């Protein structure tokens, strides 16, 4: 489904602030894989998701989605394969447009835009049904601007927008990090439900080790632009937080100095 082969990415190459964010990252994901990704600040977690989404070109390596080589494809062309939710709730939606207009843009992801109406009556009904499943009452606020929603509501909406047109790959970058614990929990449950209902191939970055252990069938740990741990199935199911901490120390040769990663 997704193949990353020896991806390298250096920011500000040749300058004093040069940063090797990805140092040859390789992995493969099967269909329906749900991988959680953990790692300290600056480990390269966001960078690998952005590289897959095509936010910037990579220096070397190949990215294949469903056997299509997308390495040189511009971001907007690959978007037909990819659904995304970002850490900042403002990033996934258009604040000055209404809920239904946002959904209407999202349901056409990867399709040619024409001079047909931006939203149809039929779609409105479908959106209503979808929004009902969130249980946030948004189905009664189709014509409300997204800027009037709370962070949690926006992330739920963004999640819906990312998946309403089923993506081959769903990329979630700390999408609950900016929310209060209670909202974060419900957005995470929603994520779990949407992913399993639609059998989505998913990569989820999180700074919460417990969430990383609880969700998905596979776990990767990143450190300084490398994947230093990649476990799945039963092996993953048997892991505990202390195990992860120990593995991190062994693999990286240093203790975790990063309290954000030391869970909540």
């Amino acid at each position, binding site marked *: 489904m997704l193949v990353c082969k020896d991806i390298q990415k250096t920011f500000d190459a040749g300058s004093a602030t040069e940063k090797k964010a990805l140092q040859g990252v390789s992995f493969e994901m099967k269909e329906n894989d749900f991988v959680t990704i953990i790692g300290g600040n600056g480990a390269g977690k966001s960078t690998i998701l952005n590289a897959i*989404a095509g936010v910037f070109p990579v220096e070397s390596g190949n990215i294949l989605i469903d056997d299509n080589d997308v390495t040189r494809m*511009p*971001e*907007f*062309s690959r*978007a*037909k394969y*990819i659904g*995304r939710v*970002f850490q900042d709730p*403002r*990033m*996934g*939606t*258009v*604040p*000055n*447009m209404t809920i239904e*207009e946002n959904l*209407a*843009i*999202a349901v*056409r*992801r*990867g*399709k040619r*835009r*024409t*001079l*047909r*109406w*931006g*939203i149809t009556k039929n779609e409105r009904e479908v959106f209503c049904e979808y929004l009902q499943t969130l249980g946030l009452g948004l189905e009664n606020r189709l014509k409300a*601007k997204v800027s009037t929603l709370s962070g949690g509501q926006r992330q739920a909406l963004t999640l819906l927008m990312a998946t309403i047109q089923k993506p081959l790959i769903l990329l979630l970058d700390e999408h609950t990090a900016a929310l209060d614990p209670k909202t974060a929990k419900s957005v995470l449950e929603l994520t779990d439900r949407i992913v399993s209902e639609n059998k989505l191939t998913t990569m989820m970055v999180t700074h919460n080790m417990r969430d990383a252990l609880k969700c998905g069938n596979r776990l990767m740990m990143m450190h300084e632009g490398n994947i230093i741990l990649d476990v799945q199935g039963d092996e993953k199911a048997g892991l505990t937080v202390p195990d992860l901490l120990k593995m991190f120390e062994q693999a990286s040769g240093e203790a975790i100095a990063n309290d954000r990663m030391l869970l909540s």
Partner: protein
Amino acid sequence: MNLGAILQAINLGLLWSIMAIGVFITFRILNFADLTVEGSFVLGAAVVARLITLNLDPALAAWIPLIATLAAVLIGVLAGLITGFLHTVLKIPPLLSGILTMTGLFSINLRIMGMANINLGRGITTLMDQAAGGLSNVTTGITGLFGGSAVDVVSRDASIAVGLVFVIIVIMALKLFFNTEIGYVIRATGDNEAMVKAQGVSTNRTKMLGLALGNGCVALSGALVAQTQGFADVNMGMGTIVTGLAAVIIGEVIFRDKNSHRVFIAVVFGAILFFIIRAFVLSIPWMNANDFRGITAIVIAIALAIPMFREKFNFRLKKAAFGSKEVE
């Protein structure tokens, strides 16, 4: 200020409001400070003036003013595309892209006109003259029914009618367009470019389209203004952007409801009010048109700074209410 002055202000306001709508599209919807408009306004005037005075095919004579006006729109669209190309393909920053096109347009406008100023006065038929003729016939006909005598419609009133027709057409067309699939993603581009890309749309394309549309409107306005004032001048674009911004800001102040289709109507009212204020200020004996430009610039600077002041003020309020810790 007498009624005549107010009517003249309404006339100018209507015609210039189409330019202000163009500025609204680039500045507010696309979030692109586009200075191309200073050139594309003149471009519209230049194209219309040249085509009308060419004395083309006499068989087409009755259609020439309309054809010339539409041609002005098309060429304005091209000007927008050039700025779009400079920005999206060549990666030149928005302000500079606009300045480059505007500067280039100065030479092009002179080439199109062949001279710095074309007179569209006596003996030359413009849209406004045609409208005045048509309206005179109609009103004479109507008064004739009641036994009255012939009525002459003054060109100012004919011009108001023409302006009204164009404003209505432009607003309806834009309202429809911005509710299409393409319209949606153009609106989204100015608000959240990353989201538009993530939804599979090239923001290079949406920006090009928005700039084309905006400058098409601006050129249309220039074409109509030239026909109403009876000349095109290579320097008539000076201060266009400031006038456009003023109309947009005044409009937004009157109709606080942003982003609904009513904003276009708000901008039209903004433009009309701007020209009424202008007429009033110019009626003060020691004021002249050149002073007014400076005053407008200062007022706009203040208006654009209001969000910043508001933020500071709110910040202080919050701080006072909750203590500094809870303020982000």
